[in-house]
């Protein structure tokens, strides 16, 4: 299977870490590391990924890896990249910065923007599981409309998160970077291809990967890949690829109703009883379908 090295002993994110069963981020992070290869240095933001892979004295990483803080993975990576340039090793070593949706689109937004604007040769990967999962499912800027989180709870006066997702991919693209794309853990070969393609470009690259969180989304751990695929097939998570500001590829889908995606997840269950609210979510999907021409 694409993105998966045949011999598990050669995985650059080794097994034996402490991620939950069905963790989408753990799968995606392994595909990213394997696709980048051993000549890579990773700067990792604080979050689940850092916690479940590096409880001292153990580490699951077989590549050079550093964790500093929540909001500064892009800035730490900028320093690594600058050091490699100084050492004359920039053509030989790849630099990846990675974090979750909160660490990227909220608290780390300034550092990310700075990294993109300065033109560092870094691939930034955002593992988007649509809330602050490490701290217990609080709402982030990438939490979707009407999602029920612990800080956007459903109640008499609330349908859940009142705002749609921040357009992070478009914000990255607006920095005039050579490559930006969205991906999904449901499509490992696509992730692998995008990582490899991104790393061929000089300058800053951005990749946002949709990764279900069974605990936070409240779904059966065996459904991670299926749910991720339904997000794409309903139009709620379009997979697109930008090169130099232009859309160069879109994953076309035979569009399915959003209910098929929503009904499998506890965070959206309330919507199925509220047709008017459900209509708002349908509009989000429809807007994506029209914007990118997703429908086959």
């Amino acid at each position, binding site marked *: 299977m694409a993105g998966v090295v045949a011999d598990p002993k050669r995985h650059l994110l080794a097994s034996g870490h402490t991620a939950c069963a069905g963790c989408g981020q753990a799968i995606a992070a392994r595909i990213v590391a394997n696709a980048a290869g051993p000549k*890579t*240095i990773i700067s990792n933001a604080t979050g689940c990924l850092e916690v479940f892979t590096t409880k001292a004295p153990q580490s699951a990483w077989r590549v050079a890896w550093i964790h500093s803080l929540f909001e500064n993975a892009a800035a730490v990576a900028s320093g690594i*990249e600058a050091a490699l340039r100084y050492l004359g090793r920039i053509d030989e070593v790849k630099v990846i910065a990675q974090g979750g949706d909160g660490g990227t689109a909220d608290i780390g937004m300034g550092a990310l923007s700075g990294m993109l604007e300065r033109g560092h040769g870094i691939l930034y990967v955002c593992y988007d599981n649509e809330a602050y999962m490490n701290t217990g499912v609080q709402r982030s800027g990438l939490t979707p409309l009407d999602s029920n989180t612990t800080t956007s709870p459903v109640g008499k006066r609330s349908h859940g998160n009142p705002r749609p997702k921040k357009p992070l991919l478009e914000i990255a693209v607006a920095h005039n970077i050579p490559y930006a794309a969205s991906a999904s853990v449901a499509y490992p070969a696509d992730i692998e291809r995008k990582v490899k393609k991104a790393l061929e470009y000089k300058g800053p690259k951005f990749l946002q990967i949709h990764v279900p969180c069974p605990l936070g989304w409240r779904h059966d751990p065996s459904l991670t890949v299926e749910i991720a695929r339904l997000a794409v097939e309903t139009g709620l998570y379009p997979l697109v690829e930008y090169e130099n500001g232009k859309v160069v590829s879109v994953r076309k889908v035979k569009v399915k109703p959003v209910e098929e995606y929503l009904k499998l997840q506890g965070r959206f269950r309330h919507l199925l009883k509220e047709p008017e609210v459900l209509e708002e979510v349908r509009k989000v999907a429809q807007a994506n379908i029209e914007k990118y021409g997703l429908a086959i």
Partner: protein
Amino acid sequence: MKKFVEGSHAIAEIIAKCRPGVISAYPITPQTHIVEGLAKLIADGELDAEFINVESEHSAASVVLGASATGVRVYTATSSQGLLLMAEVLFNIAGMRLPVVLTCANRAVSAPINIWNDHQDSMTVRDSGWIQFYAENIQEAIDLHVIAYKVAEDKRISLPALVGIDGYVLTHAFEVVDMPEEDQVQSFLPPLDPVVKLDPDDPKSMGLLGAPDVYMETRYAIAKTMEDALGVIKEASEAYSQVVGRKVGGLVEAYRVEDAEKVLVAMGSLVGTIKDVVDELREKGEKVGVLKIITYRPFPKDEIYEALKGAKYVGVVEKAVSLGADSPLFSEVASLLYKKGADAKVNSFTVGLGGRDISPAQIRQIFQEVEKDEGESRFIGLNEKLLEA
């Protein structure tokens, strides 16, 4: 080589001679001339380094963290709010044992916004695991940066170091200094050879999660290393003094304290003013002296006690406060003297906050008031009219 130079440009010149590979900074008054100087040296091809202009001090500190972790000598400079914005990263740099060197052009903190000198900024990060030096004059500022790199990068230490230089008073003043030659600095400061670094050929993980079963030992290790740093700072200062043929650095400077009954304790440029007043009062036969603390972290307890043990009255004069408690340097000096069973009465004087001028007359006043046992921190130089309003 003797030259007449602005403090900030002197810092830029000595940093360039230390050959950092990555410099990152965000502009804040009064730090700007230092990093402008370095940017120009790089632009002119006189320094081979990457200069990373970042979007915040938080990122400036993070960039040098990442570059240092990759095994390259690094430098950053900031002031005041910038240092406070860096604070989170500063603790992280120390916890990761990275030998980053930072100049803090010391400035007051907001509110009210104030761009002038005091020591409240770097005092707030005194517990972060950074070595802290304070310079009395531009010459000392130059020398302390070289010593800072030497000690920070020493494999026995591997901790970051901050050099505090008084904003405007030193950054924007001109002074005749002895600027060491590049080969002198290079011979003293060999290329960085870090304990661990990020290298794909030998992949290591840095910055792991430290659960309750390991965290406390990491803090203990830094505390013990800080104690070791006292010896290493002395050693480095002596070695560098040999190189430049002047006595430089060290932990403290005891000025005319041998038979002194009254000794003031201070840090930074303020010491120069106190020395003048000491000379003047000595001429009148008064037994007075001043103890300059050069190395504030690690806190050189033995040297401070040695200098103060014979005094009857000790006055700690500082450009910092701990709002709601005794001022920081006073607390530490008083605690030390109490523990050692010294006889001296210790009093606390807060001066010069937000750049308020400190005059020789105020120092004379402090030498008089140091005998009074008021027990509370005293603010010297307050405008009573403003207080009534």
